[in-house]
Every structure is written in C-alpha cells, then in structure tokens.
C-alpha cells in the first residue's frame, strides 16, 4: 500500500513535566476510519490535539515523531503548522457551538477560515458551503450560514462543525467526542454524516470517543487507550470480538447492549 496518511511513532506527550501520553504508535491509511476509545483522562484527546499541533500552553511532544503524508510534523510551529490546519486536516469538536465565536455568524467565520488558505471570493465560498451542506441532506444552507452559533440546535450545530472542518476538503478529519453532547437520535445522524464525508471525499477520520457503540459502528480500526498508554490496536471487529488486553476485555464487557429481537 501507499504511504500512510498518519503515522505516529512512539509518541509521548507531557504537560508541565507530567507525562500524559506514553509511547503511542499508530498508523492509518488514507480513507480509513480510526476510532480511539478510552475513559476520561486516558490521554485520547491529548493525542488528537498533538496531531493538530494544538496542545496548548505547557503541553509538548516529548518523545517520538508524528508524520502526516510522510512529512514530519512533530515540532512544526507558527505559519508552517497553521497552513496545514484547514486544508490538510480539519477538526470537529464535542461542542461545535462553543468552538465558534459567539458573536459572528457561521458563514462569516467560514469565509474567514477559507480566505486564510485560498483567495476564493465570498460568493464562491458560500456556493461551495451550500453544496457541501446539500450533500449532508440540508437544502437550506443559507439558514445555517446566516445563523449565529447559539441559534443552532445540537444536530444543526454538529453539521456546521462538519462543514467548517470539511470545507477545504482535508485528507484527515479529527473528531474529538463529536457525538457525546448529542441525543441518541441526533448522534446516529451525525455519525452517518461523517461516514458520508469519507465515502465522498476519501477523507481519513480519527474519532476519539468513550462511546464504544459509535466506534464499533463507524471505525475500521480501533485503538484502546488506558492511562496514557496504547493497550490494544487492531481491526475493529477483532478488537471488539476478541480483545487481547485485560483492560479492553473489561471495557467491552462493561458495555451494556440493547437486546433486540433476533432477526
């Protein structure tokens, strides 16, 4: 197979001298969906942020290397790192409403983002945005674009989040607990929309969540994290059905499943 989309080699991350991620190695190919599961504090979100280069103050990659399409992006800073965010990789947050400036419209912020990376005109951007929203099954794109973040419902808000992350057609989409704030009915819709992005644009997706159901439904590969370490990593079916690591076993056993009628 060709070059991996994302390749993490022995990555360790610490915040103010305290190691929160230890020696994690992961690889994913273009168009693949990788699910990272683990409980709160397991380091899964930190890992995601290190790929974006957004560890924040006090956080740094203290060991190992991160490659994006063969380029070492571990210690990229400033402009170099910024240019990758958007066209190279997009991010979806748990609460899209909060990840957007509250006093500016969605469309305004979308244009700001696109114009940082291209010289498209506003109308052109809106056109592309509406086209993308159309693919998410939303005919009335203007309404989302002209709304302020607080005006959107949970489901709408998550669509705006997908739009923001996908407008520049990045090859890698990072989703941090994208469905945790949503009701179950909306959750399934959001999951389907993300998968549709993969089908349409061949985007590789990393989804971090504590919800095993979501990962089981959408991921090709699953990584299980526990106390900052990667305890299990493999094909989704294998990890769920025959977990090797004791923690993974405990985790999969703990998931309560709805007993449906045997079809």
């Amino acid at each position: 197979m060709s070059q991996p989309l994302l390749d993490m080699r022995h990555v360790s991350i610490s915040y103010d001298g305290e190691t929160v991620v230890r020696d994690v190695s992961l690889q994913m190919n273009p168009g693949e969906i990788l699910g990272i599961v683990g409980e709160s504090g397991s380091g899964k979100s930190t890992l995601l942020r290190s790929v974006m280069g957004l560890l924040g103050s006090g956080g740094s990659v203290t060991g190992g290397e991160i490659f994006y399409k063969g380029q070492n992006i571990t210690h990229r800073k400033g402009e170099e790192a910024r240019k990758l965010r958007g066209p190279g990789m997009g991010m979806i947050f748990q609460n899209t409403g909060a990840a957007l400036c509250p006093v500016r419209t969605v469309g305004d912020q979308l244009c700001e983002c696109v114009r940082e990376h291209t010289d498209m005109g506003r109308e052109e951007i809106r056109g592309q945005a509406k086209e993308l929203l159309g693919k998410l099954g939303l005919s009335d794109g203007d309404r989302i674009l002209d709304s302020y973040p607080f005006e959107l419902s949970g489901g709408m808000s998550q669509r705006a989040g997908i739009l923001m992350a996908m407008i520049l057609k990045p090859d890698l989409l990072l989703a941090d607990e994208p469905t945790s704030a949503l009701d179950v009915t909306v959750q399934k819709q959001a999951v389907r929309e993300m998968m549709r992005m993969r089908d349409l644009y061949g985007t590789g997706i990393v989804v971090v969540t504590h919800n095993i159901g979501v990962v089981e439904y959408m991921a090709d590969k699953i990584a299980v994290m526990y106390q900052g370490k990667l305890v299990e990593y493999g094909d989704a079916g294998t990890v769920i059905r025959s977990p090797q690591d004791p923690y993974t076993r405990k985790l999969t056993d703990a998931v309560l499943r709805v007993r449906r009628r045997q079809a």
Partner: protein
Amino acid sequence: MKRYILKRVLQLVPILFGITLLSFILMNVGTADVIDVMESSTGSALTEEEKQEMREELGLDRPLPEQYGRWLLRALQGDMGESFVSGRPVFPEFVSKLPATISLTVSSVLVTILISVPLGILSAVRQNHFTDYLIRFLSFIGNSLPNFFVSLLLIYFFSLKLGLFPVMGSSGGWKSIVLPTLTLAIAMASKYTRQVRAAVLEELKKDYVTGARARGVRERKILFGSVLKTSMLTIITLLALSVGSLLGGTAIVESIFMWDGVGKMAVDAIAMRDYPVIQAYVIWMAVIYVVINLATDLIYHYLDPRIRLGQEEA
C-alpha cells in the same frame, strides 16, 4: 429592539423616583433647621417671627410627604430652589458649570481608553512575560494611589518643579486640563487595564479560540476578529461602571485644581452648608450616571447578537 428600549426607559421611572426620594430624605433628615443654616450662611440676624414667616413661605411647616411632592413638582419644572448663599436659582447655576465637568470627564475617559485598552490587550497577549508583569506592576501602583495624592504629586512635579502646566484654574487653555485629566485617568486607567486584561484573557481561554486555530486562522486575526469583538462587550460595560467612580472623583480633583465645574461647586457648597446646591448636584449626577448606564446597556444590547436575537424571539 424598540420594545426593549421602551421597556428599559420605563424601568428608569421608579429608579429616578427613588433617586429623588432618597436625596430628599437625605437633605431633610438629620439636618439642622434649614432656616438656622440660612441665617448663619448669609450672616444676617433674624427674629423668631421672621424665621417663622420664612418657614411658612418655604412650606417647611407642612408634613414631609407634602413637602416632597411640592419639591418634586418644582424640580420637574427645572426649579431646584435657590442657593442659601448667593440666593440665585440652583439649576441654571448647575447647568452653567456642567460643560466644564463634562469636558474633564470626556477627556479623562478618552485618555483612559487610549492607555488601558492597548495595554490591557498587550498584557493579556503577553501573559506572564516581562511586558505583562511591568504593566501589572504599574497598574497596581496606580490603583493604590488616591486621586488627591496624585493631583498634588502632579502639581508638585509638573507645575511647581518643571513649570510645564498651570497649577490651577480652567482659564489656561488646553494646558490647564492636562493635569486634572491625568489625575483622573491614572486612577481609572490602572483599574481598567486590569479589567481589560482579565476580559481578554477570559476570552482567550474559550473553546472558540482553539476552534479558530484548528481551522488555521492566523493568531492576529483571531485576536482582532473574534476575541476583541467578544471582549469589547464586557469592556464597554466595565467602562460605564468606572464612569461612576470618575463622576465622584471629579469633586475632589476639581476642587484641588480649582476647575470650575459642578464638583467644585458642590465641595464649596458643603463648606457653606448650601443644601439646595448639594441636592441638585447629587440628583443630577445620579441622573447622568443612570443615563450613561442605560446608553451602555442599549449599546450592549445592539452589539451582542445573543441578546439582540434572543429578545426578538420572545
């Protein structure tokens, strides 16, 4: 929006009523007999009959609620009584001195904004760097200096030692406003710089900043496009609140610099126990403050879509 303005203006009515009532009570409770005060401040000796006559003439023998009603009616027509000392009507006197105070206030607010908004932002952006520590240190000093001390220090150094500005009075052209403005601005800017810093820091911590970074938006754009836009809302409100302490501060500063505004008028009146003047001063300063706060609230309302649109839905 129109409905909101109307609502807010209507809400003012009880407040204004309260202001007048409180001022009236203040001037009538715990005071010595007004006529005695008048007697001593004009320096004329009056007989008991003459005093009684004057009381009847002024309606001072009536029950207090009635006195209040009469007084309020007259006040609404712009008649706030006559000064015990000069015998001239108080309200025109107040109005004639207001421009001096307003120009001092406005210049202080402008200087405050010019100093503290850039410094506050700089301090927040360079949090925990040398610049931040220096700005915080300076604002700390400014915060601990009472304005009467600052004015005396400024006079001592700039007027007496360096001879750059006139010591007092409002007749020296633009130069005479510099020191009083600086005095008021130093105190206000010190407080306000900290508030701007805190407001910007608060916004910088929010998720939307991470969100914008994740979309590859330049730091400069995040700061000036989003962060300032949101923190400006807090900053405007805080500015309006600081105007309150400014309006109070003018009294001391005006009297030190002999700046012929309403503050000095009030301080002079206090020495003479010239109650009608003090009363007019208190009421009108409160009214001005209330109007400023109302204006701020409406601006805030207009600028913040969260509130603007939330209201329209209702």
